[in-house]
Every structure is written in C-alpha cells, then in structure tokens.
C-alpha cells in the first residue's frame, strides 16, 4: 500500500517536473565556470587558469574618465541628458570583462599583429579557404612592442573644434556631413568624426571598420608598421587605398602622439596603459617625444 502511495507521489512529481520545465535543449548551452553569481557555488576553472575576478580590474566606466583640456565650449555643447540617464540605469549583467590576464594562461597564443586589413578578410574566396582560416599563423604573428614602456601622463586630445569625442551628442550636423552605409548601418561623417542618429540627434560613435572617406582632415598623423603606412586621426586608423582612406583596426606597433578624450587608464602588471575603443596603447618615448604604441596586452 505504502509502495503505491510512494509510486503515485513519484509520478506526480515527475509529471509536474515535465510540465513545469521548458525542457533542456534551447538555452545557455555552455558551462560558465567563472561565473560566481547567484546561489551558484563558486566553480574553479577547469584548467590551470587563474583569472582575476572580472569586476576587480574592469576599466572604469566612461563617466569617470579624465576631462583634462576639454574645451569649455564642448562641455557646454554636450547635451548629455539622455546618455547620462542611460549610463545611470542599471545594466543587464553588470558589464562584460575585457581584462583578460593572458599571463596566467597556459595556452599558445596567436596574435594578429600583421593581419590583413578588413578588405582582404571580406574576400569571400579567402574566407572560405579553410587552409588559410585554420592556419591562423599564416597572418597572425606574435607581436612584441617595439618601444620600451615609458610612462607619461595622459592628456586627452582634441583635434580642433570640429572634432568630438565618443558619445558626444549633437542636435544637428553640418550641412556637408555625408552619409555612409557600412554593414547595413548608416553613419554620418564630418571632419573625421562618425555619427549615428540617436535620441532625436546624432551621437559620435567609433569609426566603423571598412568606412571609406576621400580625404582626412588636417592634423592626421602618419605611422608606419612593417612596410605599411597607416594614417591616424581622432583615434581611428586608416589605410590609403588609392581611392581614399579606409578605416581599419588599430595595427599593433603603430605609434601615435595623441590619444583622444575618452581613453581609460588601466594598470596591468605595474604598467599603466590607455584603453581607447578597445585598443590598448602603451606610453612610450620616440625620439624624445611622448607617444603611444598600439600593443596587445598579454
């Protein structure tokens, strides 16, 4: 008799479970050994990786960035009410971690110091050439900084009155701003600054990789990496295609003299780096002049 009761109870619980649970097979499919939130026990990484907790070394949010040398008129013209409201709203997951401590990993890393510009990567023939893709070492060579670390204070830089930092909000654009379409996204370009429509106006966004402009504003720098020339303006790197200047990823080894407003200082292994638009810049000295080298932090 008691067995029947137990069996009946067991069946009820089983049916309840089957009805109540959207069964496995369509959700977070991967394990998350580094996530220690909620009521989940803290799980040790499965391999010999000893990564720091994400929140500890996470770059400070942009609201804390230094504003040294910010021209007064730009502060006054920054109607940041709406962006600030967004920044103050709680985020979905408390922000991602981009501070990977590569030193504590025991894998062989492949870096992209001399990877081909995006135009080459978009070549479908190359993309679907499995030999090229899987042999990352073909164009992903290990990168070592060329210049020695030489700390000097960060002075956020402005490229004149027409240049604006990331996040800057403009109610309207100059009449000579022109429209770009990159990866089904529309951008407006004006004087080395890229905008996207936002909250009834336009917000400055990072230069989209692949964007082509006919000319760069005065004040751009030229830097050479390997045998290639790159052009730098407003925190974005360009190559000269012959038909114009195309935005590319920041090339490792490029040396520039100015970092835009909006960079965040980050201390890694006792050295202070600047992080701007997900690119790490190492303070260096070149010919007695303060400069920054694009590096890969490892």
């Amino acid at each position, binding site marked *: 008799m008691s067995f029947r009761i137990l069996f009946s109870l067991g069946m009820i619980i089983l049916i309840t479970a089957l009805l*109540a649970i*959207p069964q496995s097979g369509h959700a977070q499919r991967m394990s998350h050994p580094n996530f220690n939130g909620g009521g989940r026990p803290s799980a040790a990484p499965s391999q010999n990786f000893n990564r720091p907790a994400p929140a500890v070394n996470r770059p400070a949010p942009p609201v804390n960035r230094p504003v040294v040398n910010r021209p007064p008129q730009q502060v006054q013209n920054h109607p940041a009410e709406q962006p600030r409201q967004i920044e103050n709203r709680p*985020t*979905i*997951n408390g922000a*991602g971690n981009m501070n*990977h401590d590569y030193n504590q*990993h025991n894998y*062989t890393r492949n870096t992209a110091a001399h990877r081909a510009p995006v135009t080459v990567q978009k070549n479908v023939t190359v993309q679907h050439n499995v030999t090229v893709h899987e042999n990352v070492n073909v164009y992903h060579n290990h990168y070592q900084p060329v210049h020695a670390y030489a700390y000097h204070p960060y002075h956020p830089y402005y490229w004149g009155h027409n240049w604006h930092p990331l996040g800057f909000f403009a109610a309207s654009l100059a009449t000579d701003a022109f429209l770009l379409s990159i990866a*089904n996204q529309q951008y407006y370009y004006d004087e080395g600054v890229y905008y996207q429509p936002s909250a009834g106006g336009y917000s400055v966004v990072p230069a989209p990789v692949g964007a082509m402009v006919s000319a760069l504003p005065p004040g751009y720098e030229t830097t050479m990496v390997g045998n290639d020339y790159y052009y730098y303006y407003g925190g974005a790197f360009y190559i000269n295609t012959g038909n114009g200047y195309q935005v590319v990823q920041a090339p490792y080894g490029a040396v520039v003299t100015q970092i835009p407003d909006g960079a965040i200082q980050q201390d890694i292994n006792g050295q202070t780096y600047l992080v701007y638009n997900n690119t790490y810049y190492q303070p260096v000295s070149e010919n007695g002049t303060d400069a920054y080298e694009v590096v890969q932090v490892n």
Partner: protein
Amino acid sequence: MNKKFFFSVLFCISAATGASAQRTSIDTVAVSILDRMSAMIGSLSSCHYTVRSNYDIRSQHLGLVKHGDDEQIYMEGPNKLLIRSQGDRGERSLYYDGETLSYYSLENNQFATLALTAPIVDMIDTVNKLYGIEFPASDFFYPTFVDDLLSESKNLIYLGMTKVDGKDCYHIAGATPDMGYQFWISDDALTLPMKMVIVYTSRDMNPQYEATLSDWQINPVLPSSLFEFMVPPKAKKIKMAKSPVKK
C-alpha cells in the same frame, strides 16, 4: 633513394602538421571581437531581441530530429526578464519581475512560481542549475562569457567575415573538449551576437543547437508591467520541480 627521402620529408611534414593540430590555439582577434560584444552587452540597461532556435532531439528510430522555437526576449537591468516562446514545445512564457519567477504554459493553462531575488544573470544561472530551466542564447549575457570560453576552449579562432541574414558578421569558431561552437558577431558599431551554433561532440550522434538572434532593440523603454505575471483565469498552479544535478 630520392623516393625514400621524399617520403621521409612528407612524413615529417605530416607529423608536424598533426602535432600543430593538437596544440591549443587562442586567436586574440577572436577574443577581441568577443570582448567588444561582451562589453556592448554589459553596457546595456535594457534590450529586446528575437531568437529562432533549432535543436536536435534524438529519436530511437529516426536518429536526430530537428525541432525549433521562436522566442521573444525582453530584459531590463538589473532584474527583469520576459521570455515568450512559441514552437515545437508549445506556447510558453517566463516572467521575472525581480522578486518572482513565473512560468506559464498556455496549452496546459498551468503556471508555477518561484520566489527569487537576484540580478538577471544570477537568476538565470541559479534557476538553470537548480531547476534545469534554460534560457535561449543567454550565454552571451554572462559577464564572464569570454573568460568562460578561454577557460575551457582548446581552440578559439576568428575565421573571417561572412553574412548572417545579409548582415556582415565576424565568424568565430572554437572547441572545448565537449563541444564545438561558432559565433557570428555583427560587424558594426554595436557588435552584437547574430547567431550561434553548438555541436556536442561528446554526445551520441553529435546533436546540434543553433540560434539566430535578430530584431535587436538597444535600451528600449519597457514598462514594468511587461514583466509581471497575471494569473490567467482558471489556470492551475503547479510546483516547480528541481532537476537532477547536472554533470
């Protein structure tokens, strides 16, 4: 003699190639792209997106059979979530208003509730672990997403550019001892996830899971009532049962 030499060289090349294939390889370009995506998601205060998921379920007589669901996801930080799901598993909804998690099955007109106060990802992780409830493509929302991949992956490589639904995307692939995975991340200012595929290489017949994410809305204003569950007329309350401990 020349022939022997040729085959010796060929053997050495083959051995070297084989050895390199076994080596752990993490492509920092891939890591950088995933970092950007993760940072973007981490900066969101609310979002809405659609997931079309396809998954294999093993049939004794038919092998792997494909099934699919369409899901609408609404999130608002730090602790509000709504998932509306339609597909082969019926029409279901999952509400989380920061205090109560409610599951509702339209076909069965049944609901279950669970008192729980936690941020979204903590709630997802806890409920997934305790009750086996899974959340569509929620891996991307873990703040430790990239760290988790790096911890477990033998290989993680950026393959190149390709298109998903006509949109240029970074194509990234990797493998852990138990699965192969691929992500497609949009090549635009937002760098949002567009698609993911997982192949369970350690499971029988290597079933796959595929999710295509679309209709992204960034920081939309969502009413609080969206996340509050109202018990439908005549709905029966059932108990949420704990799942067996996962491996």
